[in-house]
């Protein structure tokens, strides 16, 4: 191809532009970053992060943009692998066991406690981040700290809140949403009488089913184990929770005992139910579909009602970031995490997640996303009301096993469907939990 004057000119122009935009300022930015950062990546480092598949594209974009900025600032390439959220646990556990694969993992709940000795101690990083950004929320910190050592860095809580139809609630004779469990039961009864019932999953719904079951238990003061890991599920408080669940179940749409995670969303959007609990995704599914404009405008969200225990306590989903010991560049990994938690980076990410991800550090509580839409507001309190699964005992394989085996979900389902009496259901849950905690 003969090079004419025009091609030549445009070629040199783009070269010059490339030098101007990427070369010199890039170097300056890298210098500025490294001055602010405590952790210096090793020479020639590259990283691999295993994360869950994003729920909202804005979150993915913000995370990737932050990652790209990190690569530009430090020259460390970060490869991000995504796994569907239920597959992260086995994949990460295998990586921890065989000592290869991803260097870091964005995992769920108490996963880090399944293989704490395979994880890099990140106490220095987590302490620094906590001091710099207003401190960690207690519940989230519980998911990352084993005794005095941070084995992970808390990332976020995926908030859960009651989603209901304002017009249906008003039609049922309630001008505002009841704040306590008794009022809530009355509301559900009235909704049922109007033919616009509520519905919460009693099936093997990993997220929604566990959220609901833990709220039932904790709001009535019950707990699976005490501080010393003695199984205490067979208690008068649990019985009260079961009786309450039975009364609520009477008001539900039929079939909730077969519901998996998606069923309540489907039933809500098809106007089969007018009240359930879910992440903010339910609202966005309606808001994004022009055909569901009416539903979207009618959706209100509120935190789950407060029970006899007197304060708001919920499970929520929790995500943490941890670094595997087999990672060849632990300093680079720490630098990456430190970079991602810088105020403007973290704020951009939380905003991108449009109320899906609730901050782990108190400084970010005034992120504009929480006030941008009244629907978002209850989700901003997720990290505050959050309690680790396996409360009040320590996290570990036992707490993970009990939840994965659906011990609590099954206990409520057995009782509400009448398969067992409340006493038998409690005794069965006690027996199953003892197996894990013994």
């Amino acid at each position, binding site marked *: 191809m003969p090079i004419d004057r025009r091609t030549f000119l445009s070629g040199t122009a783009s070269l010059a532009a490339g030098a101007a935009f990427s070369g010199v300022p890039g170097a300056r930015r890298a210098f500025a970053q490294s001055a602010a950062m405590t952790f210096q990546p090793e020479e020639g480092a590259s990283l691999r992060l295993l994360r869950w598949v994003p729920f909202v594209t804005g979150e993915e974009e913000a995370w990737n943009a932050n990652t790209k900025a990190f690569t530009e600032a430090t020259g460390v390439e970060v490869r991000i692998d995504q796994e569907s959220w239920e597959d992260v646990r086995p994949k990460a556990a295998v990586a921890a066991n065989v000592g290869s694969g991803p260097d870091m993992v964005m995992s769920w709940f108490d996963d880090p406690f399944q293989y704490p000795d395979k994880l890099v101690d990140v106490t220095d990083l987590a302490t620094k981040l906590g001091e710099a950004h207003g401190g960690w929320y207690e519940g989230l910190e519980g998911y990352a700290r084993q005794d005095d050592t941070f084995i992970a860095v808390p990332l976020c809580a995926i908030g859960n809140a009651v989603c209901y139809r304002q017009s249906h609630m008003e039609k049922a004779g309630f001008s505002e949403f009841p704040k306590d469990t008794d009022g809530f039961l009355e509301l559900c009864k009235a909704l049922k009488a109007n033919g616009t019932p509520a519905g919460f999953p009693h099936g093997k719904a990993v997220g929604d089913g566990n959220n609901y079951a833990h709220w039932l238990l904790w709001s009535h003061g019950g707990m699976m184990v005490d501080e010393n890991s003695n199984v205490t599920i067979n208690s008068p408080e649990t019985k009260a929770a079961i009786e309450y669940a039975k009364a609520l179940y009477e008001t539900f749409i039929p079939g909730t005992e077969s519901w998996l995670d998606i069923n309540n969303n489907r039933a809500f959007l098809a106007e089969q139910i007018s009240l359930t609990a879910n992440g903010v995704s339910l609202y966005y599914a309606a808001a994004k579909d022009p055909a569901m404009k009416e539903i979207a405008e009618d959706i209100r969200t509120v935190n789950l009602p407060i029970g006899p225990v007197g304060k708001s306590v919920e499970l929520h989903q929790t995500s943490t970031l941890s670094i595997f010991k087999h990672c060849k560049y632990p300093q680079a990994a720490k630098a990456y995490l430190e970079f991602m938690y810088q105020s403007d980076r973290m704020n951009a990410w939380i905003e991108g997640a449009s109320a899906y991800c609730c901050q782990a550090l108190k400084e970010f509580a005034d992120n504009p996303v929480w006030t941008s839409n009244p629907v978002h507001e209850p989700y901003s309190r997720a990290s505050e009301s959050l309690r680790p699964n396996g409360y009040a005992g320590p996290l570990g394989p036992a707490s993970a096993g009990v939840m994965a085996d659906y011990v609590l979900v099954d206990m409520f389902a*057995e009782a509400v469907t009448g398969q067992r009496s409340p006493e038998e259901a409690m005794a069965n849950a006690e027996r199953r939990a003892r197996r894990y905690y013994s």
Partner: protein
Amino acid sequence: MTDVPLTPRRPLLARFLESRNGLGLLFMLPAAVFLLCFLTYPLGLGVWLGFTDTRIGRTGEFIGLENYIWLFDDPIFWLSVYNTILYTVVASVLKFGLGLWLALILNEHLPFKTFFRAIILLPWVVPTVLSALAFWWIYDSQFSIISWVLMQWGLIDTPINFLGQPNHARASVIAANVWRGIPFVAISLLAGLQTIPQSLNEAAALDGATSWQRFTKVTLPLLTPIIAVVMTFSVLFTFTDFQLIYVLTRGGPVNATHLMATLSFQRAIPGGQLGEGAAIAVAMIPFLLAAILFSFFGLQRRRWQQGND
């Protein structure tokens, strides 16, 4: 002493390669290595894990029969055994009956015979997870097409709770499994039917046998060996089914459809109790062995019928 001329002995390798047994061993080696690496080793590891308290992320210690003793006292495990046996027996009987019936129909002279035979295979060809997802919608507690149609016809008032009520759920998952398994049985039996010489049937017809007699006295005995093999496979597939249950119910409602395979997965991978999960999987082996032995004796019977023994 006379000099005995020494014949130079050929090198060991050459002799080994030229001997009948040596060469045979060599040819079998790849298959043997394959079997050892991919069948014997995982199976052995699984059995070993069943005797340990291994968790995900932690190597376990040998604990003898503790996993099995715990499972023996675990009503959920026994429920899953009951479900698995019920699921396998009912689904296999239905698949056999309907499959044989379908094979007999397809063996007749029908118009568009090849077309129908191809169509029949579809449920088998569709990936299990896809067909399971379709059934998930069909059985949905709010949006089931079956409930909708019956409600339109005014036969029922409220949707049928397919997957919420224990026995409904069991029947529903069995129906989905039967739908998926029929083609395999039908097409295999059809192949068997076509190997039966037409002359035998004609001879029987000339002797005045009714069509029922021809079926029971000629077709069925000649088909027995194929039936034995096909049903063994069918039973094995059904017994170890996982995907269908996992998509439809995850073992719910309250474990009413948990099979041993799904319970094993739930305890081992999400629950992290690899040892216990392995023990549940190992507990499936006796049942599977029984199915294989059944096939073995089914095949033996054929040789006896042909007078070879």
